[in-house]
């Protein structure tokens, strides 16, 4: 990836982070930690990798994205808004009565949302179904799905992993957002899913690793997934929960709580400083 594109993505990502913090602050509830850890990946997918058009969100040939870790909807909504699927003003109504933006992704009412998710473990199965549909219809689209590292404690994830390999779905790319934390604490303490890479390899997947906050690393990992070898792809990426907001970073307590006014001001100050730095580049 050239330096210009990388800088452009970094600039979008910081705007997305500001949107996430703003939306969750406005809603007074939500999941900022895992939204911020997934931000760079989602930015990369929607602003670089995926064949999507906000003016034609139902294009049957488009690439698909399934947010299996549906609670990090603020990240998806913010990226979709930045991409132009809907007005950014909607973000301020997140989770409010009568709002379009529900607490978890709702494909029926939100332009750009390809699957309704929120109950952990279910999204990846639907992504496998989409990839299977693409294969048997002879369509060339790719299905991307993002899962939490805590989410893979759900047994259904492994049923889906088995099926994706069995049906040879090399048009499926799953991302495991390995920020190491879940609501109750460290994933290794709660119920260890490690070793994640070995598990997917044993289930018949191509496994790649990446740094979730370095666009060069993300790009290198996704470029590998272009190879079609009859096996689905998984990118296990090391991420930082709450990335970009100092007091949220690496803290399980920011899994599902909103910043108060003071914390919000500080978060925006930090993110604006990053934005300013990028502008100066």
């Amino acid at each position, binding site marked *: 990836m050239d330096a210009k594109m990388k800088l452009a993505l970094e600039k979008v990502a910081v705007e997305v982070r500001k949107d996430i913090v703003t939306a969750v602050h406005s809603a007074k509830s939500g999941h900022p930690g895992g939204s911020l850890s997934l931000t760079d990946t989602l930015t990369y997918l929607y602003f670089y990798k995926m064949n999507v058009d906000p003016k034609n969100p139902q294009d049957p040939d488009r690439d698909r994205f399934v947010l299996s870790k549906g609670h990090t909807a603020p990240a998806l909504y913010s990226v979709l808004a930045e991409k132009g699927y809907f007005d950014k003003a909607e973000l301020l109504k997140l989770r409010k009565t009568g709002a379009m933006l529900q607490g978890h992704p709702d*494909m029926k009412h939100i332009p750009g949302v390809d699957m309704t998710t929120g109950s952990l473990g279910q999204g990846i199965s639907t992504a496998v*179904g989409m990839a299977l549909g693409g294969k*048997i219809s002879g369509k060339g689209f790719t299905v991307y799905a993002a899962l939490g590292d805590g989410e893979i404690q759900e*047994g259904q994830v492994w*049923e889906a992993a088995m099926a994706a390999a069995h049906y040879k779905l090399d048009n499926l790319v799953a991302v495991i957002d390995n920020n190491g934390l879940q609501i109750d604490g460290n994933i290794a303490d709660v119920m260890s899913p490690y070793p994640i890479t070995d598990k997917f390899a044993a289930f018949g997947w191509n496994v790649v690793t990446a740094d979730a906050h370095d666009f060069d690393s993300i790009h290198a990992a996704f470029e590998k997934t272009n190879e079609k070898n009859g096996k689905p792809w998984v990118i296990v990426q090391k991420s930082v929960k709450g990335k970009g907001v100092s007091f949220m970073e690496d803290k399980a307590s920011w899994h599902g709580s909103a910043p108060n006014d003071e914390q919000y001001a500080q978060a925006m100050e930090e993110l604006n400083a990053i934005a300013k730095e990028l502008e100066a580049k």
Partner: protein
Amino acid sequence: MSDVKIATRESYGNALAELGKVNPDVVVFDADLAGATKTGVFKKAFPERHFDCGIAESNMVGLAAGIATTGKIPFVSSFAMFVAGRAFEQVRNSVGYPHLNVKIGATHAGISVGEDGATHQCNEDIALMRSIPGMVVINPCDDIEAKQAVFAAAEYVGPVYLRFGRLAVPVVNGEDYKFELGKGVTLKEGNKVTLIATGLMVARALDAAKELEEKGISTRVINIHTIKPIDKDIIIKAAKETDLIVTCEEHSVIGGLFSAVTEVTSLEAPCKVVPVAVMDTFGKSGPAAELLEVFNLNKETIIEKVLENI
């Protein structure tokens, strides 16, 4: 009623194979039960459109939801216990909430599963599926109705739950029968008592009506194949025109046909409604025909309920 007996799971498999010929978008998923659910008939005809998901019903339902978004019309099959029971939350959240075009073909419903016993006898599926907003619930009574219900489900856009049985049951309807989704069928007129039946209990209700007539009790028989959305008009009419309604179902008394009918009558036309159903208990092992007697899902019980309550 003809003497021919056919299990509605057979009708399901045969109808799928017929449907596959005229609708290239139909795909079928099974969970290692293609021989028992009879989707194997479709598999033989269209192997490239049949997917065995292995013993993983939750994932199977998710696959169907996903493939439905690509324009396919998936039928997912397993025993009622596993597709409506085990995969309930997947049906609710991945299919029902986004209102995806997924058809659930559940076989081996009710206690007529027989020898396998309580773990496999699902008497709760209608209650579970009926509680999901926007879910259509169909419980066909015979071969002819079951086949047409499969085609109607494929034509309807949205989630549909189809309930089929393992036991061979009499063919109630004639070849000229026309299935209409959401429309109850008056099989016999009468003005004293109404028997509202669904599934394999329809034939039993007809038998009971014959004997009640012999006792001088004018008996109406209604077949409710679509439990949701239910035909309110036919129920209100029966509530107003006859003195008693007896509901007949091979399902728990909680949440099934009895509940659906009384939900209508209590609001629109209060009247006495008496259930013939599985009375809040688990099933047990035994030949299906014997179990239907043991659990009082028979002609004699229907007659007894009428005589007790009239």
